[in-house]
């Protein structure tokens, strides 16, 4: 993406020398589409404002929900003091962080320390450009939307490495190395599930992927074939690791490392990491909703066809319905993430690598190959128009059989073997960065 920007900047520079802006592909096309530049720029400004507002509101509510859910699961009350039922607690926390002193350690690499948060936040922020919220509600329906999403998601890795390394703090270094390993490994299963979906949709545009799933809910890619059904769960597990959520939260394990890569960050710089983390939760959940759960489609054929055909004021209503639909789906997945966080214990780094390289990676290869093969053999119309319903039943039935098989097996839960710390003789070297300095 940076290469693209450099190319764009370079071509813009050449254009300025020639003093013929319209000859450039970018500007010429833009002027052809929009004779006056003021209106689209205004719309963009509004778009930026709306999206930043959405992220902020989502993060405030998500932090509040997380505290309340954890409190509920541990028979506590959670925040109750600020505002009714503690609703304003997170807003008060944000205000507090804004007023906290900003400290840059003496030994830190100042430049990297300062631009680290910019990379982390901007990477997540750019993902919102291609996330659809309704038939017309999308900032930019790029024809390479999904690829763009995968590309900007990996900018975060660079930012984390900058921040953690520049801090010159041992805790930060340990957390960074763990986190880079984890983020980089789990990008592969995520990428392969993306490819499996693209092979079926035939498009990378987020709107076209969504539109391909309209109609009844058995048209969703989740039920498109039994293998994509598995693919959704692979994606969801991998996205838990991508967002550092439990049980994969060991890069920020409070009881082992103080706070992970942002140990040295204070005040507003820290809160930007925090904001990016919660925004990333929304991004991966909304992506899962778009790729597998029909995006802003409601799952009812008559509502979806009305949304497509509506015009004028009804079109506005249709967008509201779409926004509600994808918000429910994405927030439900976020709620599942929180539920998992307070249910599962944290796993060890060797287990994290085992899950990725030896479980998710072979499975996602299988999902890609077999889901494509299934698509080829059945061709989407084995029993005429009712084929999607059959596939839905096959997926659900297969999943049910699998679950029954799991339930039937007596699997003794060996907490000693699964969660004991590693013995010295089992470890070739220290699992983390060996500090030899």
């Amino acid at each position, binding site marked *: 993406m940076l290469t*693209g*920007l450099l190319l*764009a900047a370079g071509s813009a520079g050449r254009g300025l020398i020639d003093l013929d802006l319209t000859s450039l592909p*970018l500007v010429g*096309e833009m002027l052809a589409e929009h004779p006056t530049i003021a209106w689209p720029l205004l719309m963009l400004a509004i778009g*930026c404002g709306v999206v930043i507002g959405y992220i902020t509101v989502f993060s405030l509510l998500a932090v509040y929900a997380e505290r309340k859910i954890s409190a509920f699961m541990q028979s506590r009350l959670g925040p109750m003091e600020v505002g009714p039922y503690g609703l304003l607690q997170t807003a008060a926390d944000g205000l507090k962080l804004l*007023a*906290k*002193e*900003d400290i840059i*350690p003496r*030994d830190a690499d100042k430049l990297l320390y300062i631009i680290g948060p*910019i990379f982390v936040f*901007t990477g997540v*922020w*750019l993902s919102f450009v291609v996330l659809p919220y309704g038939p017309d509600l999308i900032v*930019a329906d*790029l024809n390479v939307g999904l690829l*763009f999403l995968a590309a900007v998601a990996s900018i975060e890795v660079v930012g984390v490495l900058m921040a953690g390394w520049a801090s*010159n703090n*041992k805790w930060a*270094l340990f957390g960074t190395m763990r986190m880079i*390993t984890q983020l*980089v*490994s789990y*990008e*592969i299963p995520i*990428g*392969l599930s993306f490819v*499996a979906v693209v*092979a*079926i949709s*035939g498009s*990378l545009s987020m709107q076209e992927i969504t539109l391909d799933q309209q109609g009844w809910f058995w048209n969703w890619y989740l039920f498109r074939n039994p293998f994509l059904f598995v693919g959704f769960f692979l994606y969801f597990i991998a996205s838990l690791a991508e967002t550092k959520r439990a049980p994969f939260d060991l890069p920020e394990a409070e009881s082992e490392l103080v706070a992970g890569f942002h140990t040295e960050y204070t005040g*507003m*710089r820290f809160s*930007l990491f925090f904001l990016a983390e919660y925004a990333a939760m929304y991004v991966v959940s909304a992506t899962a909703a778009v790729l597998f759960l029909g995006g802003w489609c409601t799952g009812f054929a008559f509502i979806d066809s009305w949304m497509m055909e509506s015009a004028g004021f009804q079109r506005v209503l249709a967008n509201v319905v779409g926004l509600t639909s994808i918000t429910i789906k994405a927030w439900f997945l976020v709620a599942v993430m929180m539920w998992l966080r307070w249910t599962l214990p944290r796993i060890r780094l*060797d287990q994290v*690598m085992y899950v990725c*390289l*030896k479980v998710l*990676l072979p499975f996602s290869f299988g999902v*890609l*190959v077999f889901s*494509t*093969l299934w*698509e*080829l053999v059945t061709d989407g119309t084995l029993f005429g128009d009712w084929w999607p319903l059959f596939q839905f039943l096959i997926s659900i039935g297969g999943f049910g059989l699998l679950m029954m098989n799991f339930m039937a097996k007596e699997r003794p839960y060996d907490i000693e073997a699964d969660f004991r710390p*590693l*013995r*010295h*003789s089992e470890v*070739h*070297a220290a699992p*983390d*960065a*060996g*500090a*030899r*300095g």
Partner: protein
Amino acid sequence: MYFDFANVLVFLLFGIAFVILNVAVLSRLMRPTIRQPDKDTAYECGEPVIGSSWVRYDMRFYTVALIFIVFDVEVAFLYPWALVFKGLKNAGAPGGGMFVFIEMLVFVAILVVGFLYVWVRGDLEWVKSMPESQSGQGSGSGGTGERAKQRDAAPTARS
């Protein structure tokens, strides 16, 4: 179409501006700045800092990075294939979509062979047990191994 990418550019600039605005302007107006030499040291649980943190770290992280590069490039190559697969299948490519599918299968199979090689070689094992690696070397550093065994024997006996 190009205008969509102009949106991306504006969003990129806005994202950077948002961070700078918050950190360098909004927060600067509200936060105190009380300089103190101790505050500027790295946090090591309140102890004086020992040495720099910019040290060498474990080889295994490099292995993971190498595996990542191989598979990430593979995924990047699969995107164009996935994009045209549906069209070629519906357009009746030579040999039907099966030909296109087998092409992908060959590409994936080559990488899976490499993946299996790495797996069998044991490079995907995060934890490499010490007695094994020492028996592989066959040299006489058994003293550390013995001590490690004794250390491990103690907690087992207790439990």
